[in-house]
């Protein structure tokens, strides 16, 4: 009885301890990111990735920081290195969480970085891929506001380019805004971005 109790306590305290470590680590990484130290945050997410090889959120955020900073990067050698890093971590996140719409959206953004870098070279090559990833994400999570928003943002871009009406996509943006209001993340540290962006897009394209 005594041994059992001891074992249980040890076990619980052990779990509690590692939970805490993960949570403190993740929280610290978000704080760094908030403090505009994205690369330090990325480094910390990377350390958490290798300490917690089963989780998908740490590699997801390593990739996301690299992707976000890829927009606007002009140096091809630097961009290629960042994109390669992002790709590795997207793959790891995918291994740890299959059929995850959030990761598919990130992957679509990964291709969009290349299109933004050189539209002439990558536009035709990757736009089909981006579209297909958004389709897939939408099938997996039809009510995820981030999926709806990202897809609609992409569609508005294409429609504007071909001088077509953006109206059908405004409905999607509105729907995303409504869903953001009630959206509850599945877990702590789960992606939550997008509400502000959705309102911004609605303001500038749909009024």
């Amino acid at each position: 009885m005594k041994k059992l109790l001891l074992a249980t306590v040890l076990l619980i305290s052990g779990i509690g301890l590692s939970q805490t470590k993960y949570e403190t680590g993740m929280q610290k990484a978000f704080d760094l990111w908030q403090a505009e130290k994205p690369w330090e945050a990325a480094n910390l997410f990377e350390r958490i990735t290798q300490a917690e090889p089963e989780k998908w959120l740490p590699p997801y955020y390593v990739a996301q920081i690299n992707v976000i900073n890829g927009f606007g990067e002009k140096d091809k050698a630097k961009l290629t290195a960042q994109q390669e890093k992002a790709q590795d971590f997207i793959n790891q996140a995918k291994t740890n969480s299959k059929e995850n719409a959030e990761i598919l959206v990130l992957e679509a953004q990964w291709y969009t970085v290349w299109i933004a870098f050189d539209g002439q070279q990558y536009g035709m090559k990757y736009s089909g891929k981006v579209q297909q990833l958004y389709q897939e994400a939408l099938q997996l999570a039809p009510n995820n506001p981030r999926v709806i928003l990202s897809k609609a943002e992409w569609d508005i871009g294409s429609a504007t380019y071909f001088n077509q009406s953006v109206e059908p996509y405004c409905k999607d943006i509105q729907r995303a805004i409504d869903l953001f209001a009630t959206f509850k993340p599945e877990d702590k540290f789960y992606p939550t971005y997008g509400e502000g962006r959705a309102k911004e897009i609605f303001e500038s394209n749909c009024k």
Partner: protein
Amino acid sequence: MKLQKNSTYNLIFVLIFLLISISAVSQTEISGIVTQKNGTPIPGANVYLEGTYDGTTTDDKGRFSFTTSEINEQTLIISFVSFEPFKMTKNVGELKNLKIRLREDVSSLDTVVISAGTFEAGDNSKVSVLKPLDVVTTASALGDFVGALQTLPGTTTVSEDGRLFVRGGDANETQIFIDDIRVFTPYTPSTNNIPTRGRYSPFLFDGITFSTGGYSAEYGQALSSVLLLNTIDFPDQEKTEIAIMSVGGGLGNTQIWGNNSLSVNASYINLAPYNELFPGRNDWQKPFETFAGESVYRHEFEDGLLKIYGAYDATEFQLTQEDINEPIGVNFKLNNQNFYTNASYSGRLKNKWKLETGASFTLSKTDINVIEDKINDTEKSAHLKFKLRKNFSNRFKMSYGVEQFLTDFKEDFNNETFDATYGFNNNISAAFTEADIIFSKKFAIKLGLRGEYSQLFDAFTFSPRASLAYKVSKNSQLSLAYGDFYQQPFNEYLKFQQDLEAQKAQHYILNYQYTANNRIFRAELYRKEYGNLVTYNSDFPSFDTDFKTNGNGFAQGIDFFWRDNESLKNMDYWVSYSYLDTEREYKNYPIAATPNFANTHNLSVVGKYWIEDWKSQIGFSYQYGSGRTYTNPNENGFLQNKTKDYNSISLNWAYLLSQQQILYFSVNNVLGFTNVNGYQYANTPNVNGDFARRTLRPATDQFFFVGFFWTISDDGEDNQLDNL
């Protein structure tokens, strides 16, 4: 009761003990500095103990310091983009005041690449000069990948032939490979003065490497050049593609399920309506008609990729061409059926070994009628290949391979007075090995050796190959390449006589390349020496001809290439110039002379301009080739005269009607330059003792093309612009 109390007490004790033990865990400090080889600090590097949360990021001076509760031996890892990760396993107590120098990662983008002789079309390649799109948006190419490559330096303008002639080499000296497996009959057969096209649709390829010399030991049986085509690994999405063209139509469909995908393409070309509208110089009884079907099946395994490619095409035409010796002209009829299949597998094995293996089979039947002669030939060829590659490190890679080529060629010849069947079996076994050594970001070498055994000649050949590259500044590099190359005499001779020897070429190449900011400049100086070329003494090769392999020759020159996608907004252009000096003594040449497929100066200018407001891409291309040699029997000498220079300007316009519909127009030789390919002289002189001649003009001076391309996909976004 006592027991319970006791256990509560115990529990409290345990908890206290645990708390104490946690806070009492000793903290060890880990610290140091991270720099590059030359001492420059590296800020932002990730420093941590493997498998733990303990770590930090280096500061502006490359310094780091953190504490850990880990004890005993631990592995410290330091990683930073574009450097090789550093690992050190030591007792935590010893990980203090470390001075760590990271080695640069040689797999990163700014590492030197061996570029001598090679042009790549691909967007991930470091030496890419063409983009996959260019193959089909080059104005003069008309959707033929060979046509687009003819705008690169090192090629010569032989407009009536359509094949690739590289650096003074015959068209047969270029070999084509699909997924590294050889294609035996890459071109649709044609006849005099009618250019041929590549058989395979550019739709299916996403990587093209064109080497004009000094290529890897992996590729054999090519004296001058290799063209490597890679099929798309995995298609993006399911779609149906429809093409309606002034010369025919096409239909394509792609399906994806699980780890599998299948693409099927069919096309039908008939030049009858076109010839009605714009009659050319030939009198067609049966205008050119061809049907082609292709399919690619791909299956992704956990650690590998299998591709099976199959293509069938049937071509038929009949025409009468003018001939100075035949007042009624020469009637020529051709019927060709060609089947090609190619299966390849590439996969990762344990310990960084990689396996690449594949096989191809070709069955080609051609029936030709020339006036009264009937010639039927059948070629069955196969290629089997097995290659292993090992990455010992980022800096040292080895590959080993064996392969077998099998060719069974038969020909029937008959006319009213003569009947014969002849042919040959040409089997070649080969082995090759190659080492890639990257000493630093600045210096790399590649060494290869290839051995071949020809069963037909019972002879071995050994070909050493070597190349090296040195980076002279941030954006420019020098490369050197040397190699020996062997190739069996071509089918047109082997079918009559088999006791010959392999032809030989040696390449020496010096290359300079500058790349920066969407601009690329290349200059390449080369010398090529030929030996064992086929010679004979009759007017043309035949049964009773005595063939020898004692011909020789040389080619030397310099090639320039400039591409700029930066200086002018929405404008992308490239310029190629080649200077070629070549002579050879082969076939039935009485003396060494410049063959008629080689011209001294070649220039190509290709431009593409995107007009945003019109949703249109306008393409332009100018081809210039200086005159080519011909023999004028009215004067002394051999190949002593030259034709006038060749000029052609082509324009195209691709207009996006919507995301999925494209209208395409193109005109070749828009200014209608009068080009002369050569002259045909009468066999016998006229009453004045002069040999009369006929000018060989292209079959048509200009060519017009209109097409409508429509893509139907689930998402309604994809289009065929990249197929144009």
